[in-house]
């Protein structure tokens, strides 16, 4: 028991590692600030594309969405980070991570927005158009507000996944929270810094996880 506490909950090591983890947390938050808005914007475009009337837009968009839902995010990250330099493209870890997550998240957010838009009855669009609103105005003022409200729980739960996914950036040595904790782990030969990182993620995300569960009640998840 003592060994387990020494190995996982060593307070001295946690205190010593805290400043490093705080720097890492800053990078994680910065990454979220870049990746969440980009993913939402890309997802909205993907949703509109996969509902487009022209099949030249619709089919490639659906393929894009399914393709990036099929590739594991870590494979995508390593491909971009380690593969592209072979083709002569040198990019920073941060750029590689942002590009990878943009592609992955757009696909996931896209599916959610599509379900939301489809949940708004077509009569709404017809009614809006008949009052003289243009197609863009109808989308912005009538369809999207209702669509977003209908899929808010899914948007929230996907955003939690996005924040958790930023931990993969540690694999391509971007100095975010998990990377900082793992550096501290390898210096101290002790898992406590990673346990501390887990606690930080827990504190950060737990309220939202609770909220998702609350939404799920009676909605069939």
């Amino acid at each position, binding site marked *: 028991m003592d060994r387990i506490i020494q190995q996982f909950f060593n307070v001295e090591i946690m205190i010593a590692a805290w400043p490093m983890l705080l720097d890492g947390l800053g990078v994680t938050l910065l990454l979220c600030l870049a990746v969440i808005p980009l993913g939402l914007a890309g997802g909205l475009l993907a949703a509109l594309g996969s509902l487009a009337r022209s099949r030249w837009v619709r089919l490639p968009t659906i393929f894009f969405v399914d*393709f990036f839902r099929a590739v594991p995010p870590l494979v995508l990250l390593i491909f971009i980070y380690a593969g592209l330099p072979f083709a002569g493209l040198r990019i920073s870890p941060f750029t590689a991570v942002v590009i990878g997550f943009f592609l992955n998240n757009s696909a996931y957010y896209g599916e959610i927005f599509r379900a939301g838009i489809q949940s708004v009855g077509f009569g709404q669009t017809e009614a809006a158009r008949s009052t003289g609103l243009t197609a863009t105005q109808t989308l912005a003022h009538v369809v999207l507000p209702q669509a977003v409200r209908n899929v808010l729980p899914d948007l929230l739960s996907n955003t939690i996944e996005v924040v958790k996914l930023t931990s993969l950036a540690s694999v391509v040595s971007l100095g975010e929270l998990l990377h900082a904790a793992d550096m501290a782990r390898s210096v101290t030969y002790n898992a406590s810094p990673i346990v501390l990182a887990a606690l930080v993620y827990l504190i950060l995300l737990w309220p939202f996880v609770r909220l998702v*569960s609350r939404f799920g009640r009676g909605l069939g998840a």
Partner: protein
Amino acid sequence: MTQWERFLDTFFNAAVLAKYTPAILQGVWVTVWLSVLIVLAGIGLGVALAVIRSFGWRLASFAIVVFADVMRAVPPLVLILIVFFGLPNAGIFLSSFFVLFVVLALVLAAFAEEIVWAGITSVDKGQWEAARSTGLGFGQSLAFVVLPQALRMGIPPLTNRAIAITKMTALGTVIGVPDILNQATTAQSFSGNASPLMLAAVVYVALFLPLVILSRWLENRFAWRKA
């Protein structure tokens, strides 16, 4: 070499591909085997936990909620690193394959529990009352009336979650599980060529694209949409 030839040589080099395809195929076996184990154990445990929770024992329900919340809030890679690097120093030695299996199965169990529980609570109360009034016991009502409906409602989100978590078997690379991605990154560093990574990406798409399309179909087929 023209640009195009250089591109082909970098990402589709036939000699490199021929040399490392067997290793990557071995990785496919590891990935598929792990995925099957994770899905069976994770969904099995998740359904069991949701059933236990429906009995309403306060202490058990509290423990299940805490477990599900923690597993859903902490990134899987963090859990994998804690277990893999922490336990040996505490005197417990587990293979990387086993660590990956246990962590991902527990994460899937947490999500499955929440999905099935949401299903159980969304079954109308009248269904319970009707079942009990015909003389079924609590356990029978749960097993024959409520749970089948809860599971049916849960099929689309469960499928999506199972796909998302089996894709995470690629995280095993970090702790040295010889899966597809691990074989590919090893081959890439030995050959100094990106073709193995390209092959790995193609293999993942070939494995998961049918599942993604299946989940799309299930969503249309099984969703009981309320207007």
